[in-house]
C-alpha cells in the first residue's frame, strides 16, 4: 500500500470507529483494520514492496494509526456499553437540564449609563476628561462665574473639608481645569461623582453622578448645541425622542437653557413617567459665558462654546424604570443582577 492509499485508509478507519453504533459494529471495525487478517497487518507485511523513499513514513503512520485506532475503539466500546450513555441512549438525555459554565457579572447601572453616554459623545469626537472630587472653591464656584454669595455657595448645600476645600457639587470644575491647561479647541465630556448636602430620599442622594460636556472653538452656536443633544437623545433614549429648549439660568452659560427630551415611554402623549407632560427634563446647557472664558485666559472675542450637563442617576432611573435612587447604592445582588 503506498502512502497515499494508507492515508485514505487511516481517515476511513477513524471515521468508521466513530460511526459504529453497537458493540458488534465496533468489533467489526477492529477486525477490518487490526484483526489478524486485517488491513494493518497486511500493510506491515507488504512494507518491503513500498517504494524506498516512502517506506519509513508508511511504517511510522501505520504504527501510529494502530495505536490510535485501538484506543478509539476501546473508548467507543465504553460509550456504547455499561454506564456510558451512547448513541442508542442519547434520546433519553434531558437537554432541559440547566446549562453549566461561566456567567458574566454585571455592570452597575450607573456605570452602564456613563459608558453608553461616553460612547455616544465619543462618536461625535468628544473625549473623556477627569478631575478630582476634592476641589477648590475657586474651581467649583468663582471660575464658573458664580457670585460669592450665590445660594449654592451655602454650607447647607456643599460639603466642606477642614483645609478650605470642598467636595465638588458638579463636574464643571473639570471643564475649568481642562481650559486652564490647553488652548482651544476643547471637546470633552466629564463623567464623575458629585456631592450635595441633600437629605437622602427617593429622588435625592448626597452622592450622585453627572456627565457634562464642553465644546469650545471659534464658531460654535446654540444650534450646534441643540443638534448635539438631539443626537444624544436619539441614541440614549430611542430614535423617536425629540428635544426642546426652555430658557433658564446658570451662572456659567449665557444664554442658558434647560433641555427636555420627549417621553420615550408614551411618545409625548403623557404618562406617569413624564408626569403627564409628555416631556422629561434631562439637561441644563447653554453657551459658555464670556466671563468664564476670561477667567481661564481665553479671548472671549474669538472664542465661542457650549456646555451641557445632566444627572446620570436620573437618566438611569428613567431608562430602567427605577423608582427610588437609593436602590442604586444599596448593592443588593437581587437588584444588581438585573443589569
Amino acid at each position, binding site marked *: 500500500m503506498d502512502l497515499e492509499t494508507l492515508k485514505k485508509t487511516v481517515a476511513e478507519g477513524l471515521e468508521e470507529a466513530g460511526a459504529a453504533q453497537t458493540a458488534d459494529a465496533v468489533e467489526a471495525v477492529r477486525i477490518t483494520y487490526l484483526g489478524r487478517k486485517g488491513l494493518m497487518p497486511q500493510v506491515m507485511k507488504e512494507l518491503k514492496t513500498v517504494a524506498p523513499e516512502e517506506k519509513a513514513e508508511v511504517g511510522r503512520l501505520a504504527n501510529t494509526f494502530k495505536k490510535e485506532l485501538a484506543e478509539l475503539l476501546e473508548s467507543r466500546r465504553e460509550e456504547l456499553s455499561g454506564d456510558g450513555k451512547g448513541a442508542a441512549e442519547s434520546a433519553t438525555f434531558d437537554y432541559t437540564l440547566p446549562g453549566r459554565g461561566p456567567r458574566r*457579572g454585571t455592570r452597575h447601572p450607573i456605570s452602564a449609563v456613563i459608558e453608553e453616554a461616553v460612547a455616544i459623545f465619543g462618536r461625535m469626537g468628544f473625549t473623556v476628561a477627569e478631575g478630582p*472630587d476634592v476641589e477648590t472653591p475657586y474651581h467649583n464656584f468663582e471660575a464658573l462665574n458664580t457670585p460669592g454669595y450665590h445660594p449654592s455657595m451655602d454650607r447647607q448645600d456643599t460639603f466642606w473639608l477642614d*483645609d478650605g476645600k470642598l467636595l465638588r457639587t458638579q463636574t464643571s470644575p473639570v471643564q475649568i481645569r481642562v481650559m486652564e491647561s490647553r488652548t482651544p*479647541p476643547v471637546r470633552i465630556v466629564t463623567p464623575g461623582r458629585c456631592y450635595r448636602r441633600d437629605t437622602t430620599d427617593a429622588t435625592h442622594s448626597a452622592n450622585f453622578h453627572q456627565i457634562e460636556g464642553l465644546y469650545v472653538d471659534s464658531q460654535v452656536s446654540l444650534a450646534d448645541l441643540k443638534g448635539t443633544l438631539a443626537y444624544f437623545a436619539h441614541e440614549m433614549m430611542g430614535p423617536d425622542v425629540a*428635544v426642546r429648549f426652555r*430658557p433658564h439660568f446658570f451662572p456659567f452659560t449665557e444664554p442658558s437653557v434647560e433641555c427636555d427630551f420627549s417621553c420615550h415611554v408614551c411618545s409625548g402623549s403623557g404618562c406617569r413617567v413624564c408626569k403627564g407632560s409628555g416631556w422629561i427634563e434631562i439637561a441644563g446647557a447653554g*453657551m459658555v459665558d464670556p466671563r468664564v472664558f476670561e477667567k481661564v485666559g481665553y479671548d472671549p472675542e474669538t472664542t465661542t462654546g457650549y456646555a451641557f450637563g445632566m444627572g446620570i442617576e436620573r437618566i438611569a432611573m428613567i431608562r430602567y424604570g427605577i423608582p427610588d435612587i437609593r436602590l442604586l447604592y444599596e*448593592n443588593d445582588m437581587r437588584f444588581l443582577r438585573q443589569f
Partner: protein
Amino acid sequence: MKLPLSWLREYVDVDASAEEIAEKLTFSGTEVEGIEHVGAGCESIIVGEVLAWEKHPKADRLRLCRVSDGSNELPVVCGADNFDAGDKVALAPVGATLPDGMTIKEAKLRGEVSQGMLCAEDELGLSADHAGIMILPADAAAGTPLLDVMGGVETVLELEVTWNRPDCLCVIGMAREVAALYGLDLKIPEPALEETGKPVEEWTRVEVQDAADCPRYTARVLTDAELKPSPMWMRRRLACCGVRPINNVVDITNYVMLECGHPLHAFDFAMLKESRIVVRRAAEGEQMATLDDEERRLTPEMLVIADAERPVAVAGIMGGAGSEISDATQTVLLESATFDPALTHRTSVALGLSTESSHRFERTVDRATVEWASRRAAALMGEHCGATLAAGVIDVCGEAAGQAPIVCRLGRLESLLGVSFSRDEVLAILARLQIPVAESNDETVSVLPPSFRPDLKIEADIFEEIARMHGLDEVPAAAPMGRVVVDADDARPRAVVACRDHLVGLGLSEIMNYSFLSEQLVDRFGKDADDRRVALLDPVSADHGIMRDSLIPQMAESLGHNAAHQELNAACFEIGSVFYRAGDGIQEEDHLSIGLMGQPQGWGDGAADTSPEGTFLRIKGLLEELVRVQNAPALELQPDTHPAFEPGWCAALFAGEEKVGILGLLVAPIRHQWRIQVPVAMAELKLDAILSQTHDVQGFKAIPVYPSVARDLALLVDESVRHGDIVQVIESDAPMELTGVDLFDIFRSEEIGEGRKSMAYSLTYRSAERTLTDEETNRLHVAIMDRLRQELKAEIRER
C-alpha cells in the same frame, strides 16, 4: 413665588387663560411649576353667624354653638376657641362638601348634636393656617356664599424664579414679563399722597454710616394709625402668596413688597430712642430679640438698623421685637431702603434666618423703586389705617447713576444663536421688554440696561433676552459635527472602562457605595490609622461623616447586606476613589476592591470549595487572570497583616518594589457581625496597578513547531515546604527546554506520615529546534529531581 392672576391683571390686560400664560412663561424662562385654584371646592360653604356658645358639658375643649345660616339656627359643636358670639364665620352646613371631598353630615359629638362645621382656613384650602376657625368681616351677611365674600376663586401660578431675575419676584415684575410676551401695555399705579402732617424732618433723623452697606435709605412718618385687620381682599392676596396676614400696617408693607418686589419695614415710632435711625454695623457682642422671639447674637459682620441706643432691626432681614407694630402703635416709621446683597446674604446665613425680605435683598432690589414703594405704602396706610402722613420723605444717598450702554453686534448674535435677526426685530423685542436703546445701526444696537434689570451687564445677557423672547424652539438643531481634537488624551478613562469590562467578564458584579461612611464602620476595620482620616465638617448624618480611605469596609458591609437577605453567594467589585491625609493635603486615589463570598454562580467546579484555602486561592486566581487580560505587571504576594484580615491569611500585593494592594480572608469577628458563615475573601488595590497602557501591546511569540514531552513528578516534602519554594528550585537553574510546571495534586495520608505531604507536578519539555528524544528529556528531568532532593530534602516518587 406665587402669583395670583387677579392681581397680575391689575397691571396688564391679558385675556389668556392661566394655562396659556403658564406655557408662555415657562418657555420664556420663568418656569410655572403649578397652577392652584384657591377657594375651589368651597362652593357649598356659607357665612354663618355665631349667636351664642357654651362649654360642652362633657368635653372642656369643645364648644356648643348656636349658629345662624341666615334663615335657621343650627347647633354646631366646635373645637376652636378664637371666636365669640356675634362673629361671622365660615360654616359648612349639613350636606356641604369640603375641598378634600368630605361631606358634612349630622353628627353627635360626646352626646351633643352638631349640624355643621365651623371651618379653619387650611380645611378650606385657603392657606396653611390652622390657628383657629376663619373669622369673616362683620358686614358679611349670614347665608351668603363664602366665595362671594372672598371675591371668588383665585387662580395662583407657582413660579420658579431664577437667581438672575430678582425683578420677577413681584407681581409688577411678572406683569412686565407678561406685557412683553403678549405685546401689551404695563399699567403701574401712581400713588397719590396727602401729606398733611408736619415735615418729616421734625419727627426724625436718619444717619447711614456706610453707603456701601446701605446705598439708599428713605423714611416716612405716619401718625394716628388705627390698627385693625386689613381689608378682606388684601388678606386674601397675602394668603394666596403664602404670607400670613397680621394687621393693617404690617400687611401693607408685605403687600407692597409682593407687589413691587421691594421689602419695607414699619417701626413703632414710639419705641425708637431719641426718635432717630442709625444704619450701622452691629457692635461685637450686641444682642437683639427679633420678631420671631429669638434672641440673636450680632457681630460687626452684620448690618443693623438702630435707634440712638440699640439695634431695632437686622437690616433687610427681620425687625426687632422691641419696635414691633402692635395694637398700641399709633405712630409708624416706614422704612424703604436697599442693602448690600452679599452682606445681607452672609448675615442671613450666619443667623440661619431667611425671610421674604432677605430673599429679595440678597438677590438685589431696584434702587429706583425705593421711593415708589414708600409712597405706595404710605398711600395705602392713609387709606386703610386712617393715618396722617408727615410731609416729605427723608432720602439718604438718593438715586443711582445710570449704567453704561451695552453694545450688541448683530453679526455675533447670529453666529452665537445660529438664527439671523434683522435690526428691526431686535429693536421690537427690546421695546417690549422696556429696555431702552441709545442708538442703533445695521451692525450694532446700543442698549441702556434699565435699573430693574441688574442681570443685564454684557452683550451675551442681551442676546439671551432676544433668544428667549424670540423662542428657543425656533433655534434649529444643526447636524452634529464630528470634530476630532487630535491631542486630547483619554487613554486612562478608556483603560478603566476596559478593566471594568474584564472584571465583569470574569464573573464579578459591580457595586457602588458612597464616598463617605460612618466612623463606627471605619473603626471596626482598625482605629490605628485615624490620623489619615478626612472628616466632613458638616455631614448630613453620622452615618456619612468620614471620607473613605479604603473600599474594604463598604465591600464587607455590602456582602453582609446581601447575606442578611439570603444572598449568600456573591462575587463583587467596586472601582472608586479613596481619600486620605498625606503631608498637608488630601490625597485622592482610585482603588479597586474585590469581594468573594460563598459559591458564586457560574464559577465552575472550583467554586464548590468554600474552605478558607479554596476561597483565598480563588481570589488569587482571579487577580492573576485579571493581570493577564489587562496585560499589567505581575503581582507578587508577600505575607502581611491587616486589621480586616485573618492572621496568616493576608498578603500584600507588590508590583515590583511598590506595594499596590492587599488581599486576605475577612476576620471572623467582622464576618460574624453580619452572620456570614463562610470564609469571605477580599482584595483592594490601586487601580492604576492593573490598568493597561494603550500602546503597551504584548508582542507575538512564534507557535512551537516541535512536539512537547510531559514528565510527571511526585515529591514527598515537609509541610513547611511551599509550592513557591518547589517552583523556585525547579526554575532556578532550569534548562531552556523546560516550558511548563503545573501542580496537579497535593496529597496527605497516614502512610506518608505526619508533617509531610506529597506534591505532584507535571513538567513540560520542548525544544525550539528539534523533537526531543526520550533520552534527552530524561536527562533534563533527572537533573531537576537531583536539585529538588538536595535543596528541599525532597523524596521523589517517580512515575
